[in-house]
């Protein structure tokens, strides 16, 4: 008998929670393929290390962008391999709950459930990421009080107001931490005339990226390829430059939070002032982001204890109490 699974199929990372066991897999959502034969060469962390460093016949790709499947076939293969790694075989077909962005279309929903079923799931149900995040972040969503959660992922940023176990207001934008990396890449190309890879941009973001001026700031040495000469070149990036580069992306995230606040009923709005908003997701780890949101909304922002695991923990709770929480699933409310 297969143990049922909860999957946070994120643009950046995939986490799998197994019923009764806990988180059994936490890896980047990357797959490396042989371009000529279509053979899978690596998945997860091993494939992530190959990004931008492969010979012509190997391609390391993220099959999800903006929280949506960009390549159905590759996603299905990735899910199949993930399920195999956690012990799912063709004879043990578990029920699966998959976390997806709330803004996905009907076609995208079907693509995710079909990919999971074809990969070996007996049944695949979807749950909105902010709802799962609120459950996983241990917010009192069973009470008639306003709980606000901001989930900033790799490809999407979602803000939701939750009360009495349901979503009251929701705002989502297809902008996330990968857009921050892309903004850094574009800035370095335009202002310094060097091309840097996706991973280098991410390293710059982690090292010196911030949304607001912070106490300890340092510069970063960035190595790339000179666009004029084609030779390797090193430039120094300052935190001010990075803040300028990513400002548009950060602004669109904070604007979506403001829009969600404005959609919330006034009775619940007063709860936010007392209880604050909760930030989850890897994108929320950007230095100064919580302070920036707090400054623009005048509402306290608190970081979740486990920002990267909150979504899969919420979905894991749904798989532990599958029958009682059926109404949470996206199909159940259509």
């Amino acid at each position, binding site marked *: 008998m297969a143990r049922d699974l909860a999957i946070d199929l994120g643009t950046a990372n995939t986490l799998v929670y197994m019923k009764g066991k*806990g*988180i059994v897999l936490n890896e980047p959502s990357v797959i490396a393929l042989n371009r000529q034969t279509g053979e899978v060469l690596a998945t997860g962390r091993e494939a992530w290390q190959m990004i931008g460093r492969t010979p012509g016949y190997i391609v390391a790709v993220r099959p999800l962008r903006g929280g949506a499947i960009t390549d159905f076939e590759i996603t299905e293969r990735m899910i199949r391999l993930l399920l195999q790694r956690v012990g799912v075989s063709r004879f043990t077909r578990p029920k699966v709950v998959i976390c997806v962005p709330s803004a996905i279309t009907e076609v995208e929903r079907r693509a995710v459930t079909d990919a999971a079923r074809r990969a070996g799931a007996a049944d695949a149900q979807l749950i909105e990421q902010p709802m799962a995040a609120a459950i996983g972040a241990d917010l*009192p*969503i069973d009470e008639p009080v306003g709980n606000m959660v901001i989930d900033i992922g790799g490809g999407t940023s979602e803000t939701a107001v939750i009360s009495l*176990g349901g979503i009251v207001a929701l705002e989502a934008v297809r902008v996330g931490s990968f857009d921050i990396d892309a903004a850094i890449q574009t800035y370095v190309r335009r202002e310094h005339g060097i091309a840097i890879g996706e991973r280098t941009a991410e390293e710059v973001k982690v090292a010196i990226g911030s949304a607001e001026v912070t106490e300890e700031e340092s510069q970063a040495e960035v190595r790339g390829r000179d666009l004029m000469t084609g030779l390797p070149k090193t430039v120094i990036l300052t935190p001010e430059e990075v803040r300028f580069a990513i400002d548009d992306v950060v602004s669109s995230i904070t604007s979506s939070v403001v829009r969600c606040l404005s959609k919330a009923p006034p009775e619940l709005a007063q709860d936010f002032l007392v209880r604050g908003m909760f930030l989850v997701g890897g994108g929320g780890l950007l230095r100064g982001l919580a302070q920036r949101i707090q400054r623009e909304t005048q509402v306290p922002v608190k970081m979740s204890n486990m920002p990267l*695991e909150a979504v899969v*923990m919420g979905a894991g709770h749904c798989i532990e109490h599958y029958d009682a929480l059926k*109404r949470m699933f996206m199909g159940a409310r259509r």
Partner: protein
Amino acid sequence: MTWIILAAIVLVAAAVLFALRRRPSDSGPESFRRHIDALSPQARREVIDRVNRQAAADNAPPKRPGRDPGTTSGDNT
């Protein structure tokens, strides 16, 4: 023979009715109450504690191989 078939049909019908009565309804106050109860902090504690324990175990320093825990090492001179 007919009696046996009739008895079997009655038994199957009774079993189906019993199963339907036992199945919790998917709507109404009872279902909503179960839904809310399942979202209570007490219900969620198990999952949160399990993942916290895992995280604590992952962050624990690795044990040194070949030494008994609690014994002092001789090379710390």
